[in-house]
């Protein structure tokens, strides 16, 4: 089990991580969801022993990353957000290098990376710097796995990767999870949150909620309306000034609207929009997704 107990970390005047406490079970696929600057990377770098927390304690399968960093580094596979393998080494050389550094061989743990590595093996003599984004990501994942880590720590692994590669990547993570590896992943993409066992919603260094994605959606009890209007900007302005408005925000081509009243009817909203001389297509009650939950949570706090 991984435990964070009241973790604080500041950089000069920025409070990057502000009192984080949570537990991650062994074998779990756990996601940190939050916008850029939420403090996800800082939290990861404290977990993998690169940063020392100002306050609080971390326990990683019973190890303290501050004191027992040598043991921690043996059991963690870390993939930083920025591609950070040697550009002038080939795919095979990079993998060989990291295997050697961890005192193991490619053959010993080939079964772990086989599915992933097979996809890039045809290009194994190509320098890593000349690979496409998706291939770089697969190579980085192979290198992070080559020493058979107990914990796989992935910092925004899908940022800058196309939609197909992203889906493939998450399928790979599911397979790795079945092999018993604990996976902690951070992402700014809300749609990926649904693929985790549990997620933590994080913003401004704080955790707002920790729960399975379905539970987070279920906790969302307020009626949520999707409004399709002709002029998004004007309607947004008008709805914000309405006394009953709890929150309204653009969501793709539509606006998502939350009311302060629990028993509000779509007709009331239509009436208001008409009274403001706004042309609308439809107003309908919808099921919230994880992104709505995240916005609602941060709105309450903010």
């Amino acid at each position: 089990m991984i435990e964070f107990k009241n973790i604080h970390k500041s950089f000069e005047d920025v409070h990057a991580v502000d009192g984080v406490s949570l537990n991650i079970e062994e074998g779990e696929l756990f996601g940190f969801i939050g916008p850029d600057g939420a403090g996800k990377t800082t939290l990861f770098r404290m977990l993998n022993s690169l940063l020392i927390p100002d306050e609080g304690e971390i326990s990683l399968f019973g190890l303290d990353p501050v004191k027992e960093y040598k043991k921690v580094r043996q059991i963690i596979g870390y993939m930083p957000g920025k591609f950070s393998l040697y550009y002038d080494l080939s795919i095979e050389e990079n993998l060989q290098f990291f295997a050697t550094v961890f005192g193991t061989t490619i053959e010993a743990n080939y079964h772990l990376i086989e599915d992933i590595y097979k996809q890039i093996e045809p290009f194994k003599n190509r320098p890593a710097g000349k690979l496409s984004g998706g291939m770089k990501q697969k190579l980085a994942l192979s290198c992070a796995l080559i020493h058979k880590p107990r914990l796989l720590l992935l910092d925004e692994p899908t940022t800058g990767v196309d939609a197909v590669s992203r889906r493939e990547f998450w399928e790979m993570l599911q397979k790795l999870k079945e092999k018993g590896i604990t996976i902690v992943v951070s992402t700014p993409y809300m749609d990926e949150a649904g693929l985790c066992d549990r997620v933590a919603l994080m913003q401004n260094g704080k955790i707002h909620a920790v729960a399975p994605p379905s539970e987070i959606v279920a906790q969302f009890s307020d009626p949520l309306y999707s409004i399709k209007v002709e002029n998004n900007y004007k309607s947004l302005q008008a709805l914000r000034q309405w006394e009953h408005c709890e929150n309204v925000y653009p969501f793709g081509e539509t606006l998502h609207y939350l009311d302060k009243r629990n028993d509000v009817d779509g007709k009331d909203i239509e009436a208001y929009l008409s009274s403001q001389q706004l042309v609308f297509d439809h107003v309908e009650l919808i099921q919230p997704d994880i992104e709505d939950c995240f916005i609602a949570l941060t709105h309450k706090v903010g």
Partner: protein
Amino acid sequence: MLPLIFVLPLVQLIVLVNAATMDMKNISVTVADKDLSSTSRLLISKLEASPFFKLEDLALSKEEAIERIQDNKTDVVIFIPHNMESDFNREGNAKLQIITDAIDASKAQLSFGYLSNIVRGLNLEISIEQQLLTDVKQIKSEALYWFNPNLNYKYYMLPAIMAILLTIIGMFLTALNLVREKEIGTAEQINVTPIKKSHFIIGKLVPFLIIGLFELTLALTLSKIIYDLPINGNLLVLYAFAFVYLLAVLGIGLFISTQSQTQQQVMMISFFFLLVFVLLSGAFTSVDNMPVLAQELNRLNPLYYFMNVIRMVLIKGAGFRDIMVEFGSTLLIACITVPLAVFSYRKTS
């Protein structure tokens, strides 16, 4: 990077050695001869015969000659006043004026020295002629230039350029290499591996040590082929010293890069150290003429020791016994800088 390693020493050896020469040739001279006597003509013919001077022009007046200095058309003006010869014959004493453009102080000094020599020769010739070869009593000095009998300036500069070359390789390349890892993020990936700090630093030291020694070999070979540089000492002594010297500067380079976050920072700091090291080391000017403070500072300057050793071994043929002090001092510097680099490298922040 690889072509750079080959091209850098070649360019330095060919261009710098010739550019940094202190030999004076083709000093441009303008003579304003108001005397127009046989003595003044003798002087002018002597100037014309000298390899150092190029007689640019005969000016009609002193003012015209000085104007040529103003316009950068000539380096030296010799003004021969109206009755130099008659003064000399009548009073045994005559004057002429030498004006030099001292923007380049060393050039001015040298050309004045050469000119004085010519005038002295002229004096001697006239007095011998007039006393009709009765024996002239005088003390003559004869100079012997040991180790470099022909005063070939290149033999002085070549070892210096080699020493600077090794410093650039040692300090710049290593410093840039480590900080580049920080910039592209590979340092982050390495830091989470169980690799030991000392192993990591050794991994950074060894390749550049090999490259440095290879560069020295390349530079020595080129110098021998192109300039026929004498190698009077034991090369083993030189390589042993170069090994220790490289350790010392590699340590400095690595220390700089552990303290920096970007390549710009590394460049700025390395340039600062390189300039101080080179200017203090006596590569271009004699250390004995420097102020006491500079001489004391040189005790901390590894390049100063290397500059001495490489010249002593190559030109003078010094053996290991002769360079003990330099060897010990450089070893001490290396023993400080390398551990400093290891300990200042932080995997955690």
